[in-house]
Every structure is written in structure tokens, then in C-alpha cells.
């Protein structure tokens, strides 16, 4: 089949950037990585990209196709070629580009290392001196997080990291839960304290790009929610994000609906809220804030209160509450139903392309 693609070339030494089009003949089963190999072998030997295993295990070939992070070795080109689309291939986002499709992974590995991605000693060793054995059920708690291959596709698209490069990000935090959720690890509290810092758990903006892009089904955003649940369960809840989350629980128990006006002082504290007074007064002027009178209370709200007490007593606390739903959610596949798009492939609305922004 004939495959055409545009590739963003970049030379860090000169700072030169150029979008070049390539057309090659490739076998029908070819992946994006196969196509790049053909370009490099037959058209332009100077093209730079990373690769190793070619089978979705090593995590080397993360890059963007039409603005979305993919593993090149997992991305078949048949449908793209059949539709006559000419995809734009570029380097991953949120990491500095070294050359063409190669990014500098140092910032990625620094955050990874900061998570102490290894078991911390100190757990109770079995008396018989043999290896520490845990049940399958307890290991299942970190099954998804253990699938991570460190490819960086989630980090590439993280909206919070784009705004604050210091945010630990989805890969590091998912790795963090892999150890927080492991019963053999003896540093759970220290980890949760550390991960609850300024650039940790509570800086996640819940854009869900990480879940969407992860080629291995790790669902990093869900792992961050599990860390949040464990932090709150452990009483590590000083962060404004944790207080914000707890206020929703309190609201549903009392009025049933979010007590919006009290959310700011409950999250930020009274002193900080007073500094927001000018902003708040403008909201009140437009009826966007203020106390509802009579208070907005849901009918039969006592049912919610009793439900909470009941489930707390049943002991599926912290991340166990997330994990119980994973079996059902695993049956769903990413994607969307066809036929609704009235515009057809390649037509308006345009996809999010790097060439539109760079």
C-alpha cells in the first residue's frame, strides 16, 4: 500500500524546524514504526526516532500522530492509507525535543526516580524465613499500574503538566500507587505524604488525556484517584485539594447538594478566602454566589447520610472502592460509535494538529 505522511523534523543545534512529506510503499500490515523504518532505509537516513522491541513492551517509540500520543509499533497504518489521509507525525509533548521525533526523557526519569519506584524494606518477614507471599487478590490491587512501560504517552498529553512542568504527572503518580498499593511496601505513609506535596496528587486537573492515550490500559488518572483515596483514608488531608474533596462528602450528607458558597473557605481557609473578597463580591452581584435561602436541600437526604455510614462500616475503604469497579470497567473499550460524524474523515472540524500551533 502507498503510505503518505508528514513528519516534523527538528535540529536542536540550529533550532530549525520543518514539516516534510514522505511517500513510501509499505506492506498492508505495516505499523507506523515499520513505515518510519522504510523512510529511514530508503528515503532519508537522517530521520531520528527511538525504537527497540517493536512489540509494545519496551516503551521506546512514543510519538504523536495527528497530535495524539501513540506507540508507533502499536499503530497500524492500513486504515489511514485506505482513507487517503496524510497524518502528521511529531515528537511527544511536554518534553524537550532533541532531534526530529526524539525527546529528552531526563525530566521524565527524574520524576520517576523521585517516586522511589522500588519496595521499601521494613515489612514483616515471614517467620519461616521463606519468601513473602501475598494473595492474588491483594496483587490485583496494583495489576493495572504494574502494566506501565514508561513510554511517556500520558505525560505527553498531560494538561496540568503543560501549565506547570513541575507537576509529578500521570506516569510517576501511577508508579507511586503501584507501591502504595503493594502490601509488601513499608513506606506507605511516607509515600502518601510525599505524593501529597505541591506538585503531587492534588495538582491533577482530571483532563483524562492520560487514560485516553495510555497504550497499556494503566489508566493513570484512576491511579491518582486511588492515591487521593488512600491519602484521605490515612488522614493525610492537609492539602487544599483533599479539603476540597472532603467538602463534597460533607455537603452530600447534610443538604445533598454541594454547598458552593462554603467551598472556598473550606478549601482555602478563612484568611485566604478574605483575600478573594473582591472577586467574590462580583460573583454575588451576578447571583453567581451567595447563600441560597431557603437552603437548597434534597428530599430524603437522610438516605444519603445513612448510606455513607453503612458503606463505611462495610470496610471497602480507600482505593478498595475504586478497585471493586475495575472488573466491570475493563469490559469497555476505548473508541466511539461510527456514523454520527456528518463531516467525514479529514474534513471540518479539523483535528488538533501540531502544525496549527507551532
Amino acid at each position, binding site marked *: 500500500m502507498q503510505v503518505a505522511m508528514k513528519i516534523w523534523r527538528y535540529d536542536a543545534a540550529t533550532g530549525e524546524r520543518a514539516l516534510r512529506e514522505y511517500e513510501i510503499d509499505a506492506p498492508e500490515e505495516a505499523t507506523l514504526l515499520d513505515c518510519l523504518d522504510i523512510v529511514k532505509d530508503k528515503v532519508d537516513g537522517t530521520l531520528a526516532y527511538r525504537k527497540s522491541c517493536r512489540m509494545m513492551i519496551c516503551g521506546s517509540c512514543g510519538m504523536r500522530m*495527528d*497530535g*495524539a500520543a501513540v506507540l508507533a509499533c502499536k499503530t497500524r497504518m492500513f486504515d489511514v492509507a485506505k482513507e487517503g489521509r496524510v497524518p502528521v507525525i511529531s515528537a511527544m509533548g511536554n518534553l524537550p525535543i532533541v532531534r526530529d521525533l526524539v525527546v529528552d526523557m531526563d525530566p521524565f526519569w527524574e520524576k520517576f526516580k523521585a517516586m522511589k519506584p522500588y519496595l521499601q524494606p521494613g515489612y514483616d518477614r515471614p517467620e519461616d524465613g521463606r519468601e513473602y507471599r501475598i494473595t492474588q487478590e491483594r496483587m490485583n490491587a496494583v495489576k493495572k499500574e504494574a502494566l506501565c512501560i514508561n513510554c511517556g504517552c500520558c505525560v505527553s498529553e498531560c*494538561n*496540568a503538566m503543560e*501549565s*506547570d512542568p513541575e507537576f509529578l504527572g500521570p506516569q510517576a503518580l501511577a508508579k507511586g500507587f503501584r507501591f502504595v498499593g503493594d502490601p509488601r511496601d513499608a513506606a506507605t505513609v511516607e509515600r502518601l505524604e510525599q505524593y501529597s506535596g505541591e506538585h503531587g496528587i492534588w*495538582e*491533577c486537573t*482530571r*483532563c*483524562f488525556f492520560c487514560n*485516553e492515550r495510555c497504550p497499556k490500559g494503566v*489508566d493513570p488518572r484512576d491511579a491518582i484517584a486511588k492515591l487521593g483515596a488512600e491519602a484521605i483514608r490515612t488522614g493525610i488531608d492537609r*492539602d*487544599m*485539594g483533599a479539603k*476540597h*474533596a472532603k467538602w*463534597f*462528602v460533607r455537603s*452530600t450528607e447534610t443538604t*445533598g*447538594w*454541594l454547598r*458552593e458558597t462554603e467551598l472556598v473557605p473550606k*478549601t482555602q481557609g478563612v484568611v485566604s478566602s478574605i483575600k478573594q473578597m473582591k*472577586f467574590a463580591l*462580583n*460573583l454575588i452581584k*451576578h*447571583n453567581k454566589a451567595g447563600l441560597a435561602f431557603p437552603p437548597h436541600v434534597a428530599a*430524603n*437526604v437522610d*438516605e*444519603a447520610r445513612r*448510606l*455513607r455510614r*453503612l458503606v*463505611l462500616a*462495610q470496610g471497602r475503604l480507600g*482505593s*478498595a*472502592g475504586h478497585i471493586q*469497579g475495575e*472488573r*466491570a*470497567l475493563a469490559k*469497555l473499550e476505548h*473508541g466511539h460509535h461510527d456514523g*454520527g*460524524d*456528518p*463531516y467525514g474523515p479529514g474534513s*471540518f*472540524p*479539523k*483535528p*488538533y494538529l501540531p502544525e496549527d*500551533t507551532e
Partner: protein
Amino acid sequence: MKRVAYYKGCLASLSAKELDTSTQALAPRVGLELVELESVTCCGAGDIHEAEPDYYLHLNARILAYAEATGCDTLMTVCNVCTLNLRQANFMLQGDESLLDRVNENLKSVGVPVYTGSVEVRHLLWEIAEGDGYEQLKTAAHKGLKGLKVAPFYGCQILRPSKIMGFEDPDRPWSLERIIEACGGEAIDYPAKIKCCGFPIIQAREETAMGELIQPVEQALEAGADVMVTPCPLCHLSLDAWQQKLEAATGRSFKLPVLHLAQLVGVAAGLEESELKFKRHIVDPRPALDRLQV
């Protein structure tokens, strides 16, 4: 008329009442009969999902159970965050019989009807972007928008994760554009339309959130937008209310009016100001609409 159980959520009940009044006024014109739910609570907005996930599941199961008790097949939302939370809980319950049994036992013991799993959670956006809703929309939008340049802003939790939302391609969505054009507006394209507005962390990490918020505002204006439209009242709150903080932080003037989806369609359908309630907005959309005599 399609009968749907209507879940308005927290914001449309309080700070975004204009979303509720415009949705209620628009609904019959696009073939929707709204059955209001009395006994429901907040869905937890992702916060209870994070703080106490087992309680989140039960809270949402309770909402689904009351929706099912109305006899409607559809629970209609007007908020992205409600849509994600309710759809996620629904899939957890529908896909795991033993979990559904446990949750139902708990619901029963506090006097809530049991949930059989028959309800589908759908956003107003989806109801009017295709099928009967779309056909009725074309007739309802008789006043048109006179070529008003409208920037669609989807927000995150109506697109991703696609395995839970599944309505359209999360990278190339089309529903808002289709509605804008059916109403006689011109849809403006810009990259940040599928990105985050920063709202979930706007209180806990304001600076990071503002770095996200500025992108759609700036890009939409550069692309020539007269107004922006969003299906999410949380996106609306950050885009409309926090815009003044963006202006203070950058020293620039944006003044981009942001409309709720039901308001934009409502303008084209000739709803009254008492239903649209534009005076509740921080950035008043009326000058932009008056300029084109929309």
C-alpha cells in the same frame, strides 16, 4: 416527545440557574419532556470518587435508581462532570452482577428503590446532536444566529475517557459544531477546544488552572469568535467568572462571552431573557448578540 429523567446537578440548581431555566424552556421545543427528580443529590463531581469511592458508587446508584423509578430509559444530564460520574457508576453496576447485588442490598436497607441497570445516562448535547432531537432542533432554531461566530468548547469529561463517554471521536468531536451550524451560526475551530479549562483545580492550584484556562480564551478570540459555547456549567464558571482573574493577571482585556449550550440554542429558538437570564453572566453576552441583531 421523549420522556427523560432530568438530573440538573448542583450548579444548575444554584450558581448556574440560567442553565436550568434555559434547559427547561428549550426542552419541549426539541422534543424532550423533562421529568424532574426530587430525591437526588450531588454526584460527587469526581471529588467523592476520589475521597470515598465506595460512597461515590452508592450515591450515584441512588440517583440511577430514582431515575429508573420514573420509568424513563434515559437520565439526561446538563453537565460534563455529572455525565462522567453517573456513566462510570452505571457501567460498574451494569457490568458486575455481584457488585450490583451488594449495592442494591445497601440501597434497600436505607429505603431507596433497587436499581436493575436499565437506565442510560446521556447529556443534552447528545440528545440534540443526532436523531429526532437534531431534526426537531433544526425546526426549533427558526430565528437563527445570523452567522454569529461561535467557538465550541467541549471540556474534558464529555469526551474522555472515550470508553466511558463513547459518543464521538474525542480528538475530532463534531456535535457542538453540528448544532452551531444547524442554528445558523458559524463554528470557529481552534486546538484547545478539547482541552481542560482548569476548573477541577481552580481552588487548590489556581495558577496551574489559569495556565490551562487562558488557552481556549486566547485561541477562540484569535480565531475571531464572537461568543463561546460549552456543554458544561463547570467549564462555564471558569471561562466566564475566572476570566476577570485572567485579565488581572495578564493585564489584557478578553471580554469573551460564554454561553451554556441550552442558551445558544435558546437564542436561535427565540427564548425570552427571563429564560436565558444573561444578566447572571460575568461577561454579558448581550452586546455581542445585539451587534448581529441575533
